[in-house]
């Protein structure tokens, strides 16, 4: 309906131009949606939704009047961008942990909990103030407790998290990164996220997003990425790109609920009936690279697409939802897939993290990074942000590969300030081929003030995931051309050179117990009250009312008897 209206407007404009009618200027924004389905070797299904809105406008240009006409781009985010002079914004909400060894690499990685990193424009004078207000505004937009992001969990990385969009100056003073590992993701976060889409959840691929099925999964991640990108191949002008991504891993097979067959209806309890009318392209891709003969895909399609993604050439079956014949006679599109074989692509880079030690005083953080490439060594950038209440001893930092010391070529360490700033440790480590590198650092647990404990302190305190960023050598040449027709899942990270691809791996978050006092109320009250009463009031009372009298020792029995007889006789007593 919308596309028809816009087409009629364009026709009227063309006709009316000669009559100087006041008609709308040609729309400079477009919307694309896609769904990629990748069966994983463990029997799980990985579904990745991506919605992209491209808009040729400039929020930050001063000469131009403030943007007030929003069509496909959501107004709430546009106002946030212009008010806080944001150059790039990446926010993600994740439930579950991505198991790299079983599932491979995700298209867009994210750590458990909430993660927010923002590049501000170089004209901003008070970055910290803008950051604080931005987190509050985003907490209202996404119904999340992002207002808990403050100076105690924000860091300013010095080499990681380079901008993913256009730009030349990268002064890291304008970058802020924070993560909330405890943040829960539920329907209340999905509801406002769906409302940002041009078609909402009423048409297109977003009708599949029913929360009862999406949250019954082993991994669920929704993210919003906003950045400026090249508008065309010559890259002479900028356009703003808003990407909303939702990654889910369904575990029907591994949790024993089904066989190795699935369908859209089984996964999402819905089928597709139409593409979003506002979308210029709406496609479903199914990854059939592994054993294409053993797949049974229905309805069948002849459209195939080959893309190089994450250093591997994959083949996809494509279903175009903007064509009516995809929906068939029933006017509903339900994809069915059965497969038998399993084939695993071993990820080249993988990281783990855990806490070693015992007791509630000291401990040791171990980060283990695996390089599974048989003959190539490559550098990785490890970024660790540890809260201030785990006091790191940097002199105990050791980096070992293949049981030999491995000296990082770049270390940036910013120590924590109690209750002000967390620790930030960034290291550039060269990983030898086919090896395991271990980074260990000892820490001591701090005793917090009693008001700083959460209402459930015995649960423990979370430490955010470490981030490992690397340029992994690729078996297959990556394409550096930027074309509009590239599928969305392969065009997220800009590719500068053909021989390697950029990947980011997140480790597990840590849960550590701090020494916790006994908060049980009656015990504390009784102890305190009785102590105060006994010591304070008791001594005071004694001081005021106690008098000293001389007390003679009692006489022996014989003398007492003699005194008794003398008293009867009426004679003066003995002394």
């Amino acid at each position, binding site marked *: 309906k919308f596309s028809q209206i816009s087409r009629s407007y364009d026709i009227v404009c063309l006709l009316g131009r000669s009559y100087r009618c006041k008609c709308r200027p040609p729309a400079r924004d477009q919307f694309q949606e896609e769904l990629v389905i990748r069966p994983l070797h463990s029997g799980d299904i990985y579904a990745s939704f991506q919605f992209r809105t491209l808009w040729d406008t400039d929020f930050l240009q001063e000469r131009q009047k403030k943007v007030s006409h929003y069509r496909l781009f959501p107004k709430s985010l546009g106002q946030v961008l212009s008010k806080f002079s944001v150059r790039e914004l990446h926010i993600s909400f994740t439930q579950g942990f991505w198991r790299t060894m079983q599932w491979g690499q995700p298209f867009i990685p994210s750590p458990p909990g909430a993660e927010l990193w923002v590049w501000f424009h170089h004209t901003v004078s008070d970055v910290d103030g803008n950051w604080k207000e931005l987190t509050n505004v985003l907490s209202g937009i996404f119904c999340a407790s992002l207002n808990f992001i403050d100076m105690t969990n924000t860091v300013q990385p010095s080499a990681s998290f380079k901008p993913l969009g256009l730009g030349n100056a990268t002064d890291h003073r304008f970058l802020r990164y924070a993560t909330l590992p405890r943040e829960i993701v539920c329907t209340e976060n999905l509801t406002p996220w769906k409302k940002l889409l041009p078609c909402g959840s009423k048409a297109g691929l977003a009708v599949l997003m029913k929360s009862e099925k999406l949250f019954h999964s082993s991994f669920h991640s929704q993210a919003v990425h906003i950045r400026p990108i090249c508008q065309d191949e010559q890259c*002479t002008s900028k356009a703003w790109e808003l990407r909303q991504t939702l990654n889910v891993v369904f575990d029907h097979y591994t949790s024993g609920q089904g066989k190795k067959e699935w369908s859209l209806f089984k996964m999402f309890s819905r089928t597709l009936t139409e593409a979003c009318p506002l979308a210029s392209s709406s496609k479903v891709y199914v990854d059939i690279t592994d054993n294409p003969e053993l797949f049974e895909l229905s309805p069948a399609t002849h459209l195939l697409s080959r893309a190089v993604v994450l250093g591997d050439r994959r083949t996809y079956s494509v279903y175009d939802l903007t064509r009516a014949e995809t929906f068939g006679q029933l006017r509903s599109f339900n994809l069915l897939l059965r497969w038998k074989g399993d084939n695993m692509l071993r990820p080249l880079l993988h990281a783990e993290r855990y806490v070693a030690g015992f007791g509630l005083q000291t401990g040791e953080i171990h980060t283990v990074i695996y390089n599974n490439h048989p003959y190539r060594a490559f550098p990785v950038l490890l970024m660790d942000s540890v809260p201030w209440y785990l006091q790191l001893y940097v002199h105990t930092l050791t980096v070992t590969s293949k049981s030999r010391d491995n000296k990082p070529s770049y270390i940036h360490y910013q120590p924590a300030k109690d209750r002000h700033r967390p620790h930030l440790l960034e290291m550039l480590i060269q990983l030898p081929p086919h090896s395991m590198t271990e980074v260990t650092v000892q820490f001591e647990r701090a005793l917090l003030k009693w008001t700083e404990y959460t209402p459930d302190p015995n649960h423990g305190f979370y430490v955010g995931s470490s981030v490992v960023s690397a340029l992994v050598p690729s078996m297959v040449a990556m394409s550096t051309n930027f074309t509009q027709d590239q599928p969305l899942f392969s065009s997220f990270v800009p590719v500068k050179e053909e021989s390697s691809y950029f990947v980011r791996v997140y480790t597990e978050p840590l849960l550590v117990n701090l020494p916790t006092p006994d908060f049980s109320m009656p015990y504390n009250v009784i102890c305190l009250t009785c102590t105060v009463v006994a010591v304070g009031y008791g001594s005071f009372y004694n001081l005021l009312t106690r008098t000293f009298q001389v007390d003679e020792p009692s006489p022996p029995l014989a003398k007492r008897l003699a005194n008794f007889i003398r008293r009867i006789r009426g004679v003066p007593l003995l002394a």
Partner: protein
Amino acid sequence: MGYYSLLTTCAFIHLLVFMPYAYSNYLENKAGQFFSSGHTNNWAVLVSLNKLGFWFNYRHVANTLSVYRSVKRLGIPDSHIVLMLADDMACNYRNPKPATVFSHKNMELNVYGDDVEVDYRGYEVTVENFLRVLTGRLPPSTPRSKRLLSDDRSNILIYLTGHGGNGFLKFQDSEEISNMELADAFEQMWQKRRYNELLFIIDTCQGASMYERFYSPNLMALASSQVGEDSLSHQPDLAIGVHLMDKYTFYLLEFLEEVHPASQANMNDLFKVCPQSQCVSTPGHRTDLFQRNPGSVLITDFFGSVRKVEITKDTINLTSSVKPPIQRSGSSDMTIESLTYVDQLPVAEIIHQKPKQKDWHPPDGFILGLWTLILLVFFQTYGIKHLKHIF
């Protein structure tokens, strides 16, 4: 015959003359009614006070969500509801059906739904935040969805459920709010003209003690149990393994499911919800501070958002026309260099990165003191006149 015709024509002329007056009177009455109506907007503050991490406090979240569902169904939009849930039950790992919260056993009714917006959750549900929301004293950067932006023509519904005692309520099992504090908060709201009428419903043990101390006008309160009584939970669900709802709110939900936006049910019907035979505890209510007769107060005055609409057929001119954005001029004339993406991991650049210029801080007190000591000792030993030998 002639007399009759004269009478009818006389009556007809009278009618013609007086009809415009009658019509204008009718209009004036209607306008008067429109502007003198009690409230023009509705707000709801729904709070669940369970403790974090306690799965068996599922029923408090289900209580709050069932009132949320009724209030939304009867017309109050999400922007006018402040929902505070102290724990996440829907996506809790112990929930056998994720993203659902059921109120009836056998999973008949999912009160969580697909379109829920929680404003305060988890650690944010504290006494301080609750009182700040009520009184409006929030930090300036608080977003709109977390504020209670009511005015003096707002009817507010406040619903609290959780654990309580005689004169206090527990927030997250680590803080308490007393009935005096709550009464003072309402008085602040009255002084700041933040409500027109307020309905306070509480479903905790000894709930009646919470409204004993109210002293502001236009307050009506309902509680699930009297002082000295406990509020009991309703039925467990064997699949989920916990009690799903409290008795009072369960019967309240059943009552509200019968109410629709045009319903004429009034407060007296609400007072009859859950008598002692069903609830075991005795529900109580307080109406002495309320100015209207409870029998004339509609349920939808608080639970719904019935708006009075005035229809007009006049056209209104917008002030200024929307100008199209300035087209980028002269872009083809000048040679613009192409923009590039930033290198994601520039290894050489990182290795040779200069250390960050730290901002200059004046020397600390310790350093200053040390230098002063050194200088003092120096001058004492050598004296000033000897300095010229050195410099």
